[in-house]
């Protein structure tokens, strides 16, 4: 219910929203949880395993119970915490893990079966038969247990990622964080202040204390106003710092759109990478519940949460509230409620010697031992000196003390330190390089001390970074001592809950210990304690205290489980933001792309490039028809193909030739100006890295061509050789792949085509095979190379890329007029297989120069990369699988790439393996399927028959082993 005169919500801005289809009204500034409590809705969810009715436990991001689905359909967001989700006009939220409704959930029968469903039940029960694991047990268990669901459709929402840099990242904007940010900012540091709440201020918004003589929220506003006015400060609200990583990198999730109606282009969340020279963790503390029988009923929540609902949202979670705790802080809840006019039924303090200054029935040395009310708390039982008494109440505010939020300090393998006086773990200093800790997360429990520590730590950081902070004038604030006595568990019959979301009880933890799962990590996995979406924020310390007790050890010896990022759940969509669809990888498009698409050529990806597969024509019904036609262009007339994607590296400098001689197996220093040479490049381990042609354009100027696939790898390799192996060489490299649009003009009519286009006339004398030089194309200076990847008389013509589109259209039009046309990757592949030319299908990383029959290309006269290791006996063993051609020899004519080769009489099993097929093509020129492959002692076996077996596709056939050059073995056509 709303409490008049309390809270920071805007009572002039009513907001209508729906929960499980029912419309409610709240105010701007409400969370879904506070607005529902204001409407007396207490039941907000069902637990994971037993489907127990649950209400809110907390008022923050640690909430385990009140998880809801926001929205419906494609954009539905499951497992949103009602305590974090702000309401907005039109918000639609649904409860989860219930059927048919939240109030009547059929699977709550699990709760009746609870005696059988304790820790380890699944492990012990669903063992046999094995065949049931995946088919029966898992689907059934998954259906019964669970949280919200995604729509199953592609996520239509936008997410984004972003970078931010600062001198100091302050994590948390409570009293310590605000004071730290203010001190550092005044000293001149670049500060980012990040806070996960929509409104900064931390507990100061939730408490009734004064700071500096004014209400806490007013002091917060005054500090924020000052910070906002400073250029060196960036305030990031709704931003949870989720992880601490190496070298001052932090992950942070900003909720950009969850508090607003959806807008098409606005991201829902931004995942920030914040790089900070220093950070101050001021993340506060989380209050822990007390485990007693049936401590999970809707209406039972932490005492601090009750104060948050009252003081920040102007809501009392109950009409008659009982307060139960083991520390003085809990008393504040009762005092604030009474001051606000809410009835307090009792204050129960577990300590017999507690000083309780509250005008309400007081029970000292007493505990709450039970509760009743199924969907709503109706009463609790107080046990005091052996007597039990029922108290009617609809809300229990409980406090077992506060756990400092140490999580981020443990993200780089740090372990927290136990502090006996506050019965809590605190951060171990230095756990994250560059991170300091201040305030409640450091175990500093009064407002005054938090303010002081924030200022002091920030001044120290400023000094470290060479800035001087003025002595802080600390605002006055409460400094009441925080006294408590440990209270983890109230003994009694029935189930006392620890992990509310995963339904782990005190009994489960004790059972784990009994069954010898004594390590805290084993206990966690056996019971699932701390494995829910809240990651045990509310329960881990209590659970390990109970484990410590059950195993006869102290809490520090028992230790904690490992804290890992993220601190709070992060959607995969946010972490992977920007990398879906077109953001997955850049698309590289050639200058002929538009013309290619106009011709309806299907595109294939070649690395990041998009290249035409083939250019279909009217009447063709399958790709083979198009491909065969295009092969015919090149063999009989002239074909045009965009080859711009091949890597081109400009190499200049006095030592250019020396570099080429060192990275290629063959010699380039002897190459004449205006000539091109084929080169083979090895890795240092003696295997082939890449091949291609290199042209000499000047005394100290070459241009190297790489395969499309290896362009990046070769550039990196050349950089390595010139920097790490021979830094004394004066040689300069730059990629010119993008500068030139380069087209193969291939076929017997290629010269005729070019002669009609170039300003010069080509002849065999001036332009023999492997010549290169400048030419003028319609007044544009280009480069011409007489090289061939088809075995035909062919050229590659390059012009500056801005003319690429135009030249491609021109070349294709002319080729078409001569009985030829454009050809794509399929035809290019057929043409090269017919000639036995290799690609990365053959030089796939495990083949040597010897394997591809090029061992004579390794010059004996000089050293080169890979030469020494290529000479190892194993790499030149005649038994190796070596390049051969294959053609069908049996009745079945099908050959498949990836098939393995066997001797005809042998069983097709691994030990009999003789080799494999790497490339297959139907050769329209020869009228049959042909293939390249590797076969043991291959070149010695021309004429033999081998058995080809493709187990994956069910193909078995006989093949004849032949020379890999199927077509024009003498090479007359390329020179003619």
């Amino acid at each position, binding site marked *: 219910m709303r409490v008049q005169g309390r809270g920071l919500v805007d009572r002039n801005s009513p907001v209508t929203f729906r929960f499980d289809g029912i419309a409610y009204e709240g105010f701007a500034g409400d969370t879904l949880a506070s607005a529902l409590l204001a409407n007396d809705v207490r039941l907000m969810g069902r637990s994971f395993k037993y489907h127990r009715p649950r209400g809110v436990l907390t008022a923050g991001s640690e909430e385990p119970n009140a998880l809801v689905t926001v929205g419906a359909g494609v954009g539905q967001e499951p497992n949103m915490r009602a305590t974090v989700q702000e309401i907005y006009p039109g918000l639609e939220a649904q409860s989860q893990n219930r059927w048919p409704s939240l109030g009547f959930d059929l699977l709550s029968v699990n709760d009746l079966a609870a005696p059988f469903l304790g820790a380890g039940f699944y492990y012990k029960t669903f063992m046999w038969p094995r065949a049931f694991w995946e088919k029966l047990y898992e689907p059934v268990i998954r259906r019964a247990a669970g949280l919200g669901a995604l729509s199953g459709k592609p996520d239509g929402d936008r997410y984004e990622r972003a970078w931010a840099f600062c001198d100091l990242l302050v994590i948390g904007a409570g009293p310590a964080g605000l004071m730290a940010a203010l001190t550092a900012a005044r000293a001149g540091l670049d500060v980012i202040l990040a806070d996960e709440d929509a409104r900064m201020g931390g507990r100061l918004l939730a408490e009734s204390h004064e700071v500096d003589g004014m209400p806490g929220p007013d002091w917060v506003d005054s500090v924020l106003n000052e910070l906002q006015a400073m250029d060196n400060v960036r305030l990031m609200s709704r931003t949870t710092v989720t992880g601490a990583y190496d*070298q001052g990198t932090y992950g942070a999730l900003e909720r950009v759109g969850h508090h607003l109606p959806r807008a098409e282009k606005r991201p829902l969340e931004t995942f920030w990478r914040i*790089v900070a020279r220093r950070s101050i963790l001021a993340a506060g503390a989380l209050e822990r519940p007390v485990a007693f029988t049936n401590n999970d009923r809707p209406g039972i929540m932490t005492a601090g949460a009750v104060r948050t609902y009252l003081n920040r949202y102007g809501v009392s979670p109950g009409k008659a509230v009982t307060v139960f705790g083991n520390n003085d802080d809990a008393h504040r809840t009762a005092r604030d409620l009474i001051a606000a006019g809410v009835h307090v039924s009792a204050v129960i303090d577990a300590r017999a010697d507690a000083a309780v200054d509250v005008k309400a029935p007081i029970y000292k040395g007493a505990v709450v031992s039970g509760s009743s009310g199924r969907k709503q708390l109706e009463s609790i039982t107080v046990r005091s000196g052996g007597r039990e008494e029922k108290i009617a109440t609809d809300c229990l505010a409980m406090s077992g003390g506060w756990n400092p939020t140490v999580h981020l300090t443990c993200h780089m393998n740090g372990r927290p330190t136990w502090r006996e006086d506050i019965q809590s773990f605190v951060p171990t200093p230095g756990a994250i390089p560059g991170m300091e800790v201040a305030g409640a997360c450091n175990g500093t429990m009064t407002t005054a001390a938090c303010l002081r520590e924030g200022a002091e730590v920030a001044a120290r950081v400023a000094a470290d970074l060479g800035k001087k902070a003025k002595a802080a004038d600390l605002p006055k604030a409460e400094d009441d001592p925080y006294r408590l006595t440990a209270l983890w568990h109230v003994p009694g019959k029935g189930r006392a809950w620890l992990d509310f979301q995963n339904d782990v009880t005190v009994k489960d933890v004790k059972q784990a210990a009994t069954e010898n799962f004594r390590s805290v990590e084993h206990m966690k996995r056996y019971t699932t304690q701390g494995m829910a979406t809240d990651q045990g924020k509310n329960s881990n310390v209590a659970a390990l205290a109970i484990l410590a007790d059950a195993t006869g050890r102290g809490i520090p010896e028992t230790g904690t489980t490992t804290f890992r990022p993220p601190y709070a759940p992060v959607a995969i969509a946010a972490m992977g933001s920007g990398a879906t669809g077109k953001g997955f990888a850049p698309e590289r498009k050639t200058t002929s792309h538009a013309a290619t698409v106009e011709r309806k050529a299907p595109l294939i990806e070649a690395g990041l490039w998009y290249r035409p597969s083939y250019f279909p024509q009217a009447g063709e019904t399958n790709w083979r028809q198009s491909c065969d036609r295009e092969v015919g262009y090149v063999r009989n007339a002239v074909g045009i193909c965009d080859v711009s994607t091949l890597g081109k590296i400009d190499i200049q400098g006095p030592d250019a030739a020396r570099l080429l001689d060192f990275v290629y197996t063959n010699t380039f220093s002897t190459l004449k100006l205006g000539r091109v040479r084929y080169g083979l490049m090895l890795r240092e381990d003696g295997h082939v890295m890449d091949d291609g042609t290199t042209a000499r354009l000047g005394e100290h100027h070459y241009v190297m061509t790489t395969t499309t696939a290896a362009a990046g790898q070769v550039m990196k390799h050349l950089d*390595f050789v010139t920097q*790490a192996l021979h830094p004394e060489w004066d040689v300069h490299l730059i990629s010119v792949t993008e500068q030139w649009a380069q087209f193969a003009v291939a076929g017997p009519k290629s010269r005729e085509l070019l002669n009609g286009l170039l300003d010069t006339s080509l002849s065999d004398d001036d332009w023999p095979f492997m010549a290169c030089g400048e030419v003028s194309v319609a007044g544009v200076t280009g480069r011409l190379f007489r090289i061939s990847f088809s075995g035909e008389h062919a050229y590659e013509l390059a012009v500056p890329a801005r003319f690429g589109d135009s030249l491609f259209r021109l070349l294709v039009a002319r080729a078409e007029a001569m009985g030829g046309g454009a050809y794509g990757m399929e035809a290019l592949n057929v043409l090269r297989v017919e000639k036995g030319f290799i690609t990365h299908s053959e030089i796939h990383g495990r083949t040597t120069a010897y394997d591809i029959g090029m061992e004579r290309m390794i010059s004996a006269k000089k050293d080169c990369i890979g030469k020494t290791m290529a000479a190892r006996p194993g790499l030149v063993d005649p038994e190796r699988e070596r390049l051969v051609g294959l053609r069908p020899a049996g009745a079945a004519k099908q050959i498949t790439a990836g098939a393995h080769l066997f001797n005809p009489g042998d069983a097709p099993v691994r030990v009999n393996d003789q080799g494999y097929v790497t490339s297959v093509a139907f050769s329209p020129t020869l009228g049959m399927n042909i293939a390249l492959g590797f076969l043991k002692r291959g070149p010695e076996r021309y004429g033999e028959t081998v058995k080809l077996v493709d187990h994956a596709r069910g193909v078995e056939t006989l093949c004849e082993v032949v020379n890999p050059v199927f077509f024009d073995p003498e090479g007359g056509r390329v020179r003619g």
Partner: protein
Amino acid sequence: MRITCPICGERDSREFSYRGADVALHRPDPEAGEAAWDDYVHLRDNPAGETRDMWYHEGGCGAWIVVTRNTVTHEVIGSELAAEVAR
């Protein structure tokens, strides 16, 4: 993880690609023999502690650098241009 490129300054590790130990800098003579070449191409230490390895500033200036770092603490201790180290 952040690495300092001696030319470009401190950058996120995504700009770099990793090659392995700085052994790669010490290419043996072609006649150094099998053992030396085996060491160079194949054998690497796997230190728990300080290590020196090669990174390529592929998303940056194209420099090969030698990074000294600690595999246990993740501390990045320093970086030098490979061209300077190799000289």
